Each structure stands twice: as structure tokens, then as C-alpha cells.
């Protein structure tokens, strides 16, 4: 996390000392072995547990998704909580950890909007099965991590988590923050040359809109959010059904140059669309459960469930969107696409 202030104070001493600690690249890096010919990453996004959540019900909902997809890794892409308490936040990550599957978390813009401190939440999300660490150094964002997927001692895929941060004040308004330059440089330092990768974040990139402009249909999913006019972006593409960062980050360029195959986020609950831009798949997972708000597909089923990314030993990448009804707990649809190389 970047030090933004320069207020000399004894109270800040522990923090200042902590920030001087040298961070080794391996603090960010975890390794998971690929035990079969593919590696399955389940993305749960915008879970949004709050004070009104029926927690046993939502656990049952996620149990079905996990059992159905049999993942090797679970990635939670932000907004797992919303105006909740420490008790609820503890229940959520107790549950995630209890699944016994390696998991990783990137924060969304709402994850600190509850009755806890950020340092408490950092500790709460890192449990026994966490495949990531919270590293506090000069890199912006709290949840930047990389997981190397190894086969026979060789890295065959990399899975990145990039903290898209939350808000930035703009007078009396808050705009969505963006992936800062320090994170882009961090990513460039962690990406292994010639190794395919996928990345997870929360707030969409501007390139999502560029992909939409080139091909509104995309390769999978739907766009059910109303149009928005993000300042700056609106001059380039007009009003589009995305709510991206307010500043154009250079992360996409770095990701494309590093050979990243896909970047997947959350944030816009009613969207589960994925498009292609300059050879990279860009889009959303499927909102997990009905909490807060959710979209309904053109065919009438809820756009709720999860996304599964199947990373092949042959560098193939499959995206599966599975839709699970929150009331009946029955699957309403499942779609799989192969991402072109």
C-alpha cells in the first residue's frame, strides 16, 4: 500500500517501520500443483453478504456451485460483503475456508464498507486454505497476488489478482478508482515470460467498453446494466452498459504484452458478458446469489451463479457460466465457450 501522507507522528511509527520492511517477490507468490490435465478456477463474485442475508441458505447455494464445478481454486472477486458486521464477515470466510479448497480474494469497492477496520479484514480473509497473502509495501491496493500453477516443477499458468481499489474523491462525488501505475509495474515484475495467465479484478477496465464497441455480442453472457456515461470514456465510446474505473489504467496494455489470456471481474451485477479485445478475453463472472441486486437474462432466468475457468495443460482456456436459481436451487442454464488463442 502506498504511503500517501506525510504527517510526522509517533502514532504512525509502527506503520512507517512496517512499510520499510523489504518485500520479496515470493511474499506475493503462491504455488499450486496441477494434479490433472486441466486446472479449474471457480470465480465467485459480488456475494454481498449483509445484515439481511439468510446465511444458511446462501451457504447451501454456494455448496451447490462448488460441488458442481469441482474447482482447484476459488477466486472471490470483490464485494463479498456489504454493510455487514464482523460476525458476518467471519461467517463468510469461515465457510470459504471450510470448503478445504485453495482460495484467493481481491477486494471490491464495498468490502471495507462494514463495521471493521481494513487491517482486521486483511486478517479475516487470509485463512488456512488461502492461496494468497496480504502484502503491505509501496504497491497500491491490498489484494495483489499471483498463483503459479505448476506441473512437474514447471509453471504452466499464472493466475493474477489485481486490486482495482475502491473510490477516489472528486469534490462531492466519489468516482471508481483504478489500477495504479505501481500495480502495473508490480504485475510486470511478477509475470513470467512465455507463461499464459488469467487475471481477476473487481472494477471493469475501459477496454471492456472498447471490446463492446468492436463486438457488442461478445463471446458469452449478457449485458443487462443500464447505460452509463463514464467521464472521458463517454467521449470515446458513448454511453455503454459498464461502470468502469474513472481513469484509464495502463494495466491492460501491460497484461496483453505479458500474454494474459483473460481478465475477469465483477462489480456490474447484471452483466456476465465477456468480449475479446486485442486477443484478450475481457468481461465478467456471474454474480453469486441474489443479494443486493441482480440481473435477469433475456430468456428470463436469473443471471446468478458462478463462472468457471478451465485452464488446459495445452494452454487452452474455457469459460463456463453456470446459472443457479436462488429460490429453487436448480441450475437454469450452463454455457461453455473456448477462448480463441
Amino acid at each position, binding site marked *: 500500500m502506498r504511503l500517501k501522507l506525510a504527517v510526522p507522528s509517533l*502514532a504512525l511509527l509502527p506503520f512507517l517501520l512496517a512499510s520499510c520492511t523489504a518485500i520479496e517477490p515470493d511474499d506475493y507468490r503462491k504455488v499450486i500443483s496441477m494434479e490433472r490435465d486441466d486446472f479449474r478456477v471457480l470465480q465467485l463474485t459480488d456475494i454481498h453478504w449483509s445484515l439481511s442475508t439468510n446465511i444458511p441458505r446462501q451457504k447451501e447455494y454456494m455448496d451447490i456451485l462448488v460441488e458442481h464445478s469441482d474447482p482447484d481454486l476459488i477466486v472471490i472477486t470483490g464485494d463479498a460483503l456489504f454493510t455487514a458486521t464482523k*460476525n458476518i464477515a467471519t461467517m463468510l470466510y469461515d465457510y470459504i475456508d471450510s470448503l478445504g479448497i485453495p482460495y484467493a480474494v481481491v477486494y471490491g469497492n464495498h468490502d471495507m464498507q462494514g463495521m471493521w477496520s481494513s487491517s482486521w479484514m486483511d486478517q479475516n480473509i487470509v485463512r488456512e486454505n488461502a492461496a494468497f497473502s496480504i502484502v503491505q509495501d509501496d504497491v497500491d491496493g491490498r489484494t495483489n497476488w499471483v498463483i503459479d500453477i505448476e506441473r512437474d516443477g514447471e509453471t504452466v499458468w499464472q493466475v493474477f489478482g489485481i486490486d482495482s481499489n475502491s473510490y477516489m474523491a472528486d469534490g462531492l462525488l*466519489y468516482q471508481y478508482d483504478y489500477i495504479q501505475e505501481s500495480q502495473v509495474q508490480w504485475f510486470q515484475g511478477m509475470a513470467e515470460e512465455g507463461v499464459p495467465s488469467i487475471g481477476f479484478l473487481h472494477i471493469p477496465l475501459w477496454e471492456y467498453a472498447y471490446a463492446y464497441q468492436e463486438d457488442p455480442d461478445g463471446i458469452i453472457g449478457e449485458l443487462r446494466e443500464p447505460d452509463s456515461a463514464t467521464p472521458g470514456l463517454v467521449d470515446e465510446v458513448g454511453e455503454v452498459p459498464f461502470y468502469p474505473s474513472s481513469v484509464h489504467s495502463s494495466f491492460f496494455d501491460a497484461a496483453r504484452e505479458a500474454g494474459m489470456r483473460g481478465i475477469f471481474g465483477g462489480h456490474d451485477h447484471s452483466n456476465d458478458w465477456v468480449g475479446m479485445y486485442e486477443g484478450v478475453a475481457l468481461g465478467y463472472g456471474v454474480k453469486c446469489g441474489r443479494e443486493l*441486486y441482480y440481473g435477469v437474462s433475456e430468456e428470463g432466468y436469473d443471471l446468478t451463479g458462478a463462472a468457471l475457468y478451465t485452464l488446459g495443460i495445452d494452454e487452452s482456456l474455457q469459460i463456463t457460466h453456470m446459472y443457479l436459481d436462488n429460490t429453487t436451487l436448480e441450475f437454469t442454464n450452463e454455457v461453455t465457450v473456448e477462448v480463441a488463442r
Partner: protein
Amino acid sequence: MSTFWNNNGQWALRHALWILYVLVSPLVFLGSYHFIGDLLDFSHFGFLLPPYIGYVVLPIYLLVVLYLLAFPGERTNLRNLHLIHGAVLAGLGAFLIVLVSSYILSGFYWSPVMGTVNDIFPIDLIVYGALAMLLGGFLLAQPLLPGSDLSSWKRKQRGRGFWPLLAGGIFYSLIALYLLGALFSGVDFANWFSEAFLLMFPSYFMMLLATLLLVPIIYRDEVLGGRPTRKGSLAIKIVPGILVGVGLVLLITTNLLEPNLYVMAGKPYFPIDFEGSLNVAPVVLSLFPVLALAFILVRNWRTPSKDGEETQKE
């Protein structure tokens, strides 16, 4: 009990009012969290109705009742006031208990100790309901007990603007209670050693000040009967003026130094800002103490020439 209430009831209520104000503030903050979380479409209103009643409606109503009883008007029928509000308070408590019990029995609340809001939720709501019933029953019983005589209770002439002022006071108190509750609750969720902790101090001060400014208002109007001495009148204007002035300068300075102050350290205190993407925290923190100060200055516009001889008309 009745003799005790005849002689000491008003004194007890006046002191209980302040203690209760402080005690219920974290509940009001907690209740507001429920409200904000459901603000988008109120689709969970039924599920959240018991917390709304237990954490917000009951405490606020109780404060209003205590205020009306502690500072009765000249023509207030204290007997009826006890009877009506005692019955309503007990009824609200009973309703809360029945509501929570039915939710638990029907499975709508999946356990008697869901443990979501706190470790014993929703049992805590049943406890609050029981306390409201007890207190309501106590108030209800007082005028009915033999020997009940509330004629010695101090009264004050109410101006014509009393009820609008009371309504305004309730609205102001809701905000002030939220801010005070946030401040107290923040002991648990402040980032004590974060870079922004010191910069949050003026915000914490303003959160406290919103409540502190109620003290001179109530003291002047209700304890001094609207007739402060010359020194008292000056103090009532100058001390809050200095506090608000210093607080405002520090608040503005810290927000200018770090425009993202509340993004870094204020999200738990002001969740509605981040739900609506509106940076209203500095506005609320400035506006409410300024409003209270303006009210104080208007009420004390004219300073008595000698102690107690000349006072502003009510």
C-alpha cells in the same frame, strides 16, 4: 414506589435521559446500518423490521418520552402522559417480542442465535422488548398507584413553536445519535495505527460535537427555564462558537490535506456515502454542528444587561 416517583422521578428522568442518550447511540448506528444495507429497494424490510424497531424506533421513542416527562410543559397532563406513553412503550416492547418469536418459530430467522449482528442476535431484541415492557409498565403504573401526586414536578411554559422545535430536535438527534454511535462503535473498527488515523481526529471531534451542542441548548431552555444569567448567556454563545470554529477549520484542513480521507479511514462510519458515491460526510459533519450553533446564537441573541434582568423573549 409512588412516593419515590413523586419526589425523585423527574430528577431521575433528567439524568437517565443523558445516560440513555449515550447508551442507545451505538444501537441507532447499528440500526442505520441495516437501513442503509436495504436502501436500494427495501426488499428485506420484513426481515429487518425487528432490528428497525429494536435498534431505532424503541430507543428514539424512549428518549422522546423521557424528555417529555422530564421537562413537562405548564399545561401538560402528567398523569395522561405517563399512561399513554407507558402503554405505547410496553406495547412496542410486546410487539417486538411477538415479532421476533414468530420469526424464529416460523424459521424466517433460522436460529434464536443467528449471531449475525452480535453473538446473541436476535435474542438481544427480545431482551430490549422485555426492557421496554418493564419500563412501559412502570410508567403506566405510577399514576395508578395510591398516593400518586406529580404536582411537585417542575414545569415550564412552552412557546408556540414547541412541537415544530421538538420535531426538529428529534431529526437533529437522530443524526447526532448516529454520529455519536459511530464514534463509540469506531473504537472497535478504527485503524488505530493507520496513516489516516490522526487525520480523522477532527472528524471524530465533529461527531462528538453534534451531541455536545445539545447540552447548552437543553441546559438553557429546560434547566434555566430560558433565562440564563449574563455570564451564562455569553458562555452559551462563546464556548460552542469556539468549538465549532476550531472543529470546522481542522475538518476542512484535513480534508484538503487528504481528499480521500474517508476512502482510507471513513468507510465504516459513513457507508451511505459509498453506496451513493457521494462524499457527504464532510458536509454532514460541518452542517449539523453549525446548525446547532446557529440555533444557540438565535436563542441567545440578546445578552442580559445584568444577571437575570433582561432575557430574550421565548
